[in-house]
């Protein structure tokens, strides 16, 4: 008896990643260089904050546009409202008469975020890197792209998810967070408020998936819709790379984790179908264990018996309600 294989984790070599500066600057690496995730390979000057003061802003006597002023200094007023510099910055006026206050430019460092080799450079703008990744497959995902630090919450309890979001994540903005087996409405709402980069879960209801799309939150689901666990192999791998810089490709349905140079993808041909025998990992879709994972315990002429992940229950399954997992 043969069944299809759902590949959950896959190592891929030769992936091309482009890293670019937010505005033209200097690239300090060369084609052929081997680089590491946190190595500085380019830089530019970037002003991170800008405040529009409008065209009714009146500059304080003694100051002029183009001056650099310190944090806390009074710069002028709009009507009777005085404006104090919230950060060190520069005042300027555009052609239409609107006044702006922007922070002084700071260094922006271009980091590869991955291990790899520089294969091309657009001088002063970007680099193209060849790298290798471990890809974790989503069965469903919202279509966005984001890269950022991966945070992995412990799996067991929904209550803990909220605890982690509220207490331990002071800077959740832009982070890619694995929040557990099943996505709860509270976690989704909180993640939206914290401007989380992406949420990763074992499962979510179809309604929650639609909600994530509505709230414009990137969401990747590893197992299916409803209440299903994350495959233990996926959770184990995520845990191994917690705090690593990762890439969420919603449109391609995968999470890519950069790997050090030298990690080779397996040479054996990837299987499309697998012969069902004792010991293979499976996911099953029968009513009493819908979407559950387990291991084939025994195979008879007409049935497959699967020991569920809890280790105790054995259930009888027949194709097409069973898939091999790799």
């Amino acid at each position, binding site marked *: 008896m043969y069944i299809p294989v*759902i590949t959950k984790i*896959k190592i891929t070599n030769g992936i091309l990643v482009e890293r670019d500066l937010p505005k033209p600057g200097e690239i300090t690496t060369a084609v052929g260089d081997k680089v590491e995730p946190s190595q500085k390979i380019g830089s530019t000057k970037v002003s991170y904050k800008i405040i529009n003061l409008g065209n009714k802003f009146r500059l304080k006597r003694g100051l002029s546009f183009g001056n650099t002023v310190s944090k806390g200094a009074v710069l002028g007023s709009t009507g009777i409202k005085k404006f104090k510099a919230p950060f060190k910055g520069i005042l300027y006026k555009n052609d239409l008469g609107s006044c702006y206050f922007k922070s002084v430019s700071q260094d922006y460092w271009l980091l590869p975020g991955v291990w790899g080799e520089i294969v091309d450079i657009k001088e002063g703008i970007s680099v193209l890197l060849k790298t290798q990744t471990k890809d974790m*497959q989503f069965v469903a995902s919202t279509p966005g792209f984001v890269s950022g630090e991966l945070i992995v919450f412990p799996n067991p309890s929904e209550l803990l998810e909220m605890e982690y979001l509220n207490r331990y994540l002071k800077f959740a903005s832009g982070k890619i967070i694995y929040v557990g087996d099943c996505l709860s409405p509270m976690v989704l709402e909180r993640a939206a408020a914290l401007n989380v980069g992406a949420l990763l879960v074992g499962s979510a*209801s*179809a309604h929650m998936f639609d909600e994530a799309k509505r709230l414009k939150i990137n969401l990747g689901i590893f197992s*299916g*819709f409803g209440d299903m666990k994350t495959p233990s192999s996926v959770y184990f791998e995520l845990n191994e790379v917690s705090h690593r810089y990762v890439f969420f490709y919603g449109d391609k349905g995968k999470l890519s984790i950069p790997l050090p140079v030298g990690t080779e993808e397996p040479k054996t041909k990837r299987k*499309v179908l697998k012969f069902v025998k004792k010991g293979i990992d499976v996911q099953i879709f029968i009513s009493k264990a819908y979407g559950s994972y387990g291991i084939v315990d025994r195979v008879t002429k007409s049935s497959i018996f699967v020991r569920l992940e809890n280790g105790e229950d054995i259930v009888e399954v027949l194709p*097409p309600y069973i*898939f091999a997992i790799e």
Partner: protein
Amino acid sequence: MSKLYVYFGVSATYSLYVDKDSKPKFDVFRYAYSHQLYRNHFSEEEFNQEVVNLFIKKYKAKETGLEKQFIYQSKLQDNLGKDSWFPIIVNHLNITTRQGNYVIPADFSTDYISNLSIFNDIPLDNVSEFGVPMPLKPSKDIVFMGDLVIKMDPSKYLFLLDLISTVGIYSINLDQKCEYILRKPLVDMKFPYTAVSLGTLVNSPGPTSCLIETSVGTKQLVELKENDLVFIPLENMSVARIVVKGQSIGSVDTKIRGGVLGVVIDTRYKSGKNSRALVKSRAVFISRIKEGLSKI
């Protein structure tokens, strides 16, 4: 020369193997390609090739001289022929006939249906959840096939009956291996096409009376109110005469044959306002089908 015909359905793959020495063999592999599940690992072509290889292995066919022909879902209508049969292919959330493709209305806000869009191999088990799909206008000899009917249960029989809303008397049949779609080599080799007879459907919305007279002379008069559904046992291969009088069907006197469901007299209004009332009666109808099947 041996031939392998494969139809790649939406959630299952069907095959026919013939060679000059043996009878035609049919087989169904209960899976099909899912873009969501496999896109990052292998293409649809690679998946289909592996399934074809599996069939070749199973039939112990020799690759040399093996003529292969593939039928894809997108070209299914081209393979439905122009004979007296009216094939209705009920696949994963869609129905294909010679007249066109119809979508089975489903609520994608439910987890069950959303999962079917990923794990498309999982059959529709709870068909009673679905509304009555687009009414079809079939010719006399209907044959149901496709992924939904590979494994039947009472709710699926009712679902198939729901599909036919056009008034008339129909012979209804079941083809669980899509032999109709794959049968081209059989036509060449003059093998007859046979489907399992489900019996006769008398589709007569509104009050109806039927007199059934079997070939051994027994007579049975059935009087039905509107929105009812009954099953009169009539064995497969048995022929009977039926005289039907009904509000919408008028007066009909014709010969019918039996099958798994016998004679199905259906007085339901399957579209319009009245059809909503039928939802309440579904459980009753399903238990009648169950009861009828248990007598076979």
